[in-house]
């Protein structure tokens, strides 16, 4: 999920509740949900 440069791999996105976060230091509140969304390829 995390690359050698401590970045989020480009086929994975993080969302706190419904909003995207690009900063790995972002805080997740007590009532918030962190979603990890991976690109899918199937068709």
């Amino acid at each position, binding site marked *: 999920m995390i690359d050698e440069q401590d970045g989020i791999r480009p086929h994975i996105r993080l969302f706190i509740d419904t*909003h995207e976060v690009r900063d790995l230091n972002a805080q997740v509140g007590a009532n918030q949900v962190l979603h990890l*969304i991976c690109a*899918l390829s199937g*068709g």
Partner: protein
Amino acid sequence: MTLSAAELARYSRHLALPEVAASGQERLRAARVLVIGAGGLGAPAALYLAASGVGTLGLADGDRVELSNLQRQVLFDSDDVGTSKVVAARRRLAALNPEIAVLVHEGDVTADNAVAVVRDYDVVIDGTDRIGTRYVVNDACVIAGRPLVSAAIHRFEGQAMTYVPGRGPCYRCLFPETAAGIVPNCAEAGVLGVLPGVMGAIQATEAIKLIVGRGEPLIGRLLTYDALEMRFQEFAFDRRKDCAVCGPNPSILAPVDTAASAPLARHRRLAPAELAALLSAAAAGGAPVRIIDVREPYEFAAGHLHGAQSVPLGQVERMRWDDGATTVFVCRSGGRSSRACQIAVNHGLTGAADLEGGLLAWAASIDPALCVA
């Protein structure tokens, strides 16, 4: 041009909707929609778009209908197995709605032809089963300025988003890049047959909304569907200032097949005829060949090469490496075997190779009797 009596009857339920009405139906008739990939997603999308009266429907696919497609690709019948997908699809869609024109592009959409293909259409539906093609289609739509309705499926999950030029983020804004092998396709991971029906219908809905000019498209919104939990969720995302294709300073000026250009560990790829020659030589007392079939056990059970050993891809990392024989990895179409080869190379197995095009290519050119699930 006004609608004919036959069209008034056929589309009467649309005409009863004030949001569509005769003007919307005329827009649908004048519209040109391209469906890339006549698979699980493309099949329901094309059926609904044809039934809805989209005047010109393009279908792009280079595959033939396989028995394993029929579990979800509702465009096709058992009699179509072995037939070109786009030819079989055109026949079915023409029977469903003879008022529309169906254009076929028999072959793959590639970085070389994508812009020219999408430029002829008003809306593009991406239903491909290959991650690299998703980037090619996205780049082509951004460059040609065409709206794109993208969806993808995996096991019990689906995703959908819509890109409209100048109005929101593109697919690369969401997932800037990827590489083949990181993201499994349906043949590798499996898929619930009805899942693409849901997601393909969503794609058709989005296309119709864009054409008619009503509703809120999925612009800057990733819609996810979990069939097991029966839950839809929505996630907001923005344009990236550094997007390589739709950003203010794009580095991609022509479509790029990210997966194809990703660096892979070096290994030898054998054409079916080359593997056949190696096996013949081994049978005649030559250098031994060890065939490792990295498909799942149920695929192996349906049919496999004589003497092949079943080691599903997930177990390759733990297999016992033996440099005493030429190891050839095989799978259905060459994706998993390529990854297995990279693992082998990483373990120092210098003689590893894989079968290019997989067992599908083997069945096509060497042994048509081989059943490839």
